[in-house]
């Protein structure tokens, strides 16, 4: 599967190069070129370089591609203007033709084109209407094909389908609103080794029929992450257990329970997915996955020891600070647990034993976003005033100093990272 993908990619690159070379306008003052995202014009002198044996009608097609989203049973119309840039009359007979590398080919019965044919004089233009009707029973998914206006093709070896020169690409996404709403889109939490946690994924069936589900951990995602050497998994998916009903009844809500027992020796991070395997055509293959992200955090038992030397009797000031990114507060979270307040346990000792430390200041700081242009207009006008994205916590201690060797023992509580600052003498 993976090799096939690579072959496809290489073939695609090769084909794009060929097409690009074939259609690259030559830098010449007397050659008129049209090269916008909407328009393509093939000049006679261009193809002569590589395809001198090919003759084809020279048309200007605008636009050259179109993307539309439609639900089953819906329809839409697209207008395409074709201009004859040749020096002779060209007969246009638009038809649907397959295009390589499409997830699904557009069924030609879905598309009708008017007028069905047209003799176009030099410099004359005509507007074609392409009407797309999606049948009620169409499967959701991405569809593609081309509308060829002439039978001119390019020789190629990379595809079983001929490459039509005078064509526009048509892409259709057939979609339906999901019948099941996944109200917990991800689970993200900081967990401790040896502890147990429970999470809930709430599903709401808004359809008028029961829908089967079969949640399981997604092993494909697991191997993908491993291949690219992510930070290493703290534990395997067997540390978790899923319990869920097999059916979400029509109009009802169901809960998928995830129980996590973090192994005692777990360190690092876990990334994964739960594939809910929702058996309903309204749900795309990748749309029924719930992301999992667990950061295993371990409360240290032993303090961090910092040795330092003083050469005066000046007072010693110790400042400890930690930062907490409030990403979850900003984004919302699937987490079920609350982060506990940070703090520090400190001990300072010198040659004569422990020295009493006096807490002289506790500081809470933060970084607050004011929103501005990143908010929808109805929230800019009224809300979006404060969003705290970064919090800091600072403790400042002081003690009388003395010349000698010192050891500062710092035990951070509920802190992932901290800074220390030891000042001998005036601290401000």
């Amino acid at each position, binding site marked *: 599967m993976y090799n096939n993908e690579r072959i496809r990619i290489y073939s695609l690159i090769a084909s794009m190069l060929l097409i690009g070379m074939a259609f690259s306008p030559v830098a010449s003052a007397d050659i008129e070129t049209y090269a916008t995202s909407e328009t393509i014009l093939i000049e006679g002198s261009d193809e002569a370089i590589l395809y001198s044996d090919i003759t084809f009608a020279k048309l200007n097609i605008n636009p050259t591609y179109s993307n539309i989203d439609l639900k089953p049973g819906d329809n839409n119309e697209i207008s395409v203007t074709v201009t004859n840039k040749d020096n002779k009359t060209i007969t246009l007979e638009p038809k649907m033709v397959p295009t390589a590398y499409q997830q699904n080919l557009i069924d030609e019965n879905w598309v009708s084109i008017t007028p069905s044919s047209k003799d176009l004089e030099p410099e004359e233009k005509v507007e074609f209407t392409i009407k797309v009707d999606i049948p009620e029973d169409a499967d959701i998914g991405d569809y593609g094909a081309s509308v060829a206006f002439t039978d001119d093709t390019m020789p190629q070896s990379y595809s079983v389908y001929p490459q039509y020169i005078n064509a526009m690409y048509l892409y259709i996404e057939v979609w339906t609103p999901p019948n099941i709403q996944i109200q917990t889109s991800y689970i993200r939490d900081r967990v401790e080794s040896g502890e147990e946690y429970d999470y809930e994924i709430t599903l709401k069936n808004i359809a008028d029929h029961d829908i089967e589900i079969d949640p399981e951990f997604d092993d494909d995602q697991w191997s993908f992450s491993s291949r690219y050497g992510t930070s290493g998994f703290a534990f395997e998916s067997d540390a978790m257990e899923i319990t869920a009903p097999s059916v979400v009844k029509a109009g009802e809500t169901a809960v998928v329970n995830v129980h996590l027992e973090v192994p005692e020796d777990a360190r690092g991070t876990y990334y994964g997915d739960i594939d809910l395997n929702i058996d309903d055509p309204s749900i795309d293959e*990748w749309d029924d996955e719930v992301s999992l992200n667990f950061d295993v955090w371990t409360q240290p038992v032993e303090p961090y020891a910092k040795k330092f030397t003083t050469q005066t009797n000046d007072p010693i000031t110790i400042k400890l600070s930690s930062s907490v990114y409030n990403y979850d507060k900003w984004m919302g979270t699937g987490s079920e647990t609350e982060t506990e307040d940070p703090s520090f346990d400190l001990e300072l000792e010198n040659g004569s034993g422990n020295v009493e430390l006096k807490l002289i200041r506790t500081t809470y700081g933060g970084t607050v976003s004011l929103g501005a242009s990143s908010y929808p207009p109805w*929230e800019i006008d009224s809300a979006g005033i404060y969003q705290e994205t970064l919090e800091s916590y600072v403790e400042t201690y002081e003690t009388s100093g003395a010349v000698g060797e010192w050891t500062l023992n710092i035990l951070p509580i509920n802190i992932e990272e901290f800074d220390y600052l030891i000042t001998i003498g005036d601290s401000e």
Partner: protein
Amino acid sequence: MVGMSKISIALVVMIFLFAGIISLTNFTNSSSVNEFLWTGAPPSNADKIEARISQLVSPYQGIEYDNITLATSEKNNKIHIHATASTSASKYMDRYDFVYSDNEIIITGYILEAIPESVRSEAISLALQNEEVASAMGSGMYTNGDPSVKQILPETSEKFYTGKPLISVTWMDSSISALIDMDTRAVVQVWTGSE
């Protein structure tokens, strides 16, 4: 004649009673606050400020605030008041900014997230059923993080739809937001970040 007078008096009394009920109801709706807490020393006219703020706050329909915490700061002879209102009906809080000057209090900003969970879920569900939202989120619909759900007050809503409370469901990380009329269960505006 006497009978008519009695009827008239009775009618007048009933009208006043009715008006009183309406007036009382209006007042009760906007002043269903149980407790005010001040961070720091309350100003001398705290009672007056509390009474006015009680009238200005807008808890989501059907919920009441358990308490409102007020913090003040003074700048350019104006008192800026930040109010944080909590309710047992939601784990989220409502926040307001007021300015008090010349015996007037006006609301200058708000973030109203204290919305019952059932309403939050319903609003998210409605947003996801919108074609433009679903289309904009594409195949990553369920990996775009949890949305924020906020009440939008009529003063703001009238600029975008009509002057009534609406709900905004926003996926900030995807720059997608849906403005929803919960009465009609309709998405009335969609923002995709490029507008």
